[in-house]
């Protein structure tokens, strides 16, 4: 799964730490999602969409 988390975060000038604080997860988790090591659960994906005020389908895209 590809995602636009890093792009959205950097557009806002947020650090991974700042995003992690907003999501109530560890910075390690934000880093894993951004680098594609980990695909978040649906609840966390919804939280990401809420934080970036967008839709899940605008943040995540299938690889194929």
């Amino acid at each position, binding site marked *: 799964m590809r995602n636009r988390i890093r792009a959205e975060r950097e557009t806002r000038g947020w*650090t991974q730490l700042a995003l992690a604080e907003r999501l109530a997860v560890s*910075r390690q988790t934000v880093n894993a999602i951004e680098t594609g090591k980990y695909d*978040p659960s649906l609840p966390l994906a919804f939280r990401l969409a809420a934080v970036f005020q967008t839709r899940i389908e605008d943040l995540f895209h299938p690889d194929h």
Partner: protein
Amino acid sequence: MPSQTGDMTSELDSTAETAREQNLRRRYRTRITMASIIYVVVLAPVTFWGGLGGHSAWRFLFALLPVLPAAWMAAIIIARFRELDEYQVRLAFPGIASALVSAMLASVTIGFLGITGLNLPGVGWIVFVAGMGTWWLVSQLTGAAKQF
């Protein structure tokens, strides 16, 4: 211009942790250290003056006393697992699963050897070392150890 340094994806990245994560880990380490100290404080007199090799019925009670702080340590570790977020749990899982398999294999091996009449001294400790050792080793390899 974003830089690429290992897992870092840009200059906005850092290896710092959130305040919540730091607080939780600090609390875990304080608690596990306290429980470990109490374990040693209980274990020492039990080992040296508990008369565990004697014939008093009290020796059973004395022998089980260190289990109390050990159970507390187990509860602290379980509580720490409940604090982990979803990715951290996923990261920790291989260590726990490997430890379970390792301890079970050690237990079954010792059990079959026992059937042949080979009674190893301190077999319980072999199972413990197999489980804890595997957890430690796999957690180091996966990076999950940093969460504790």
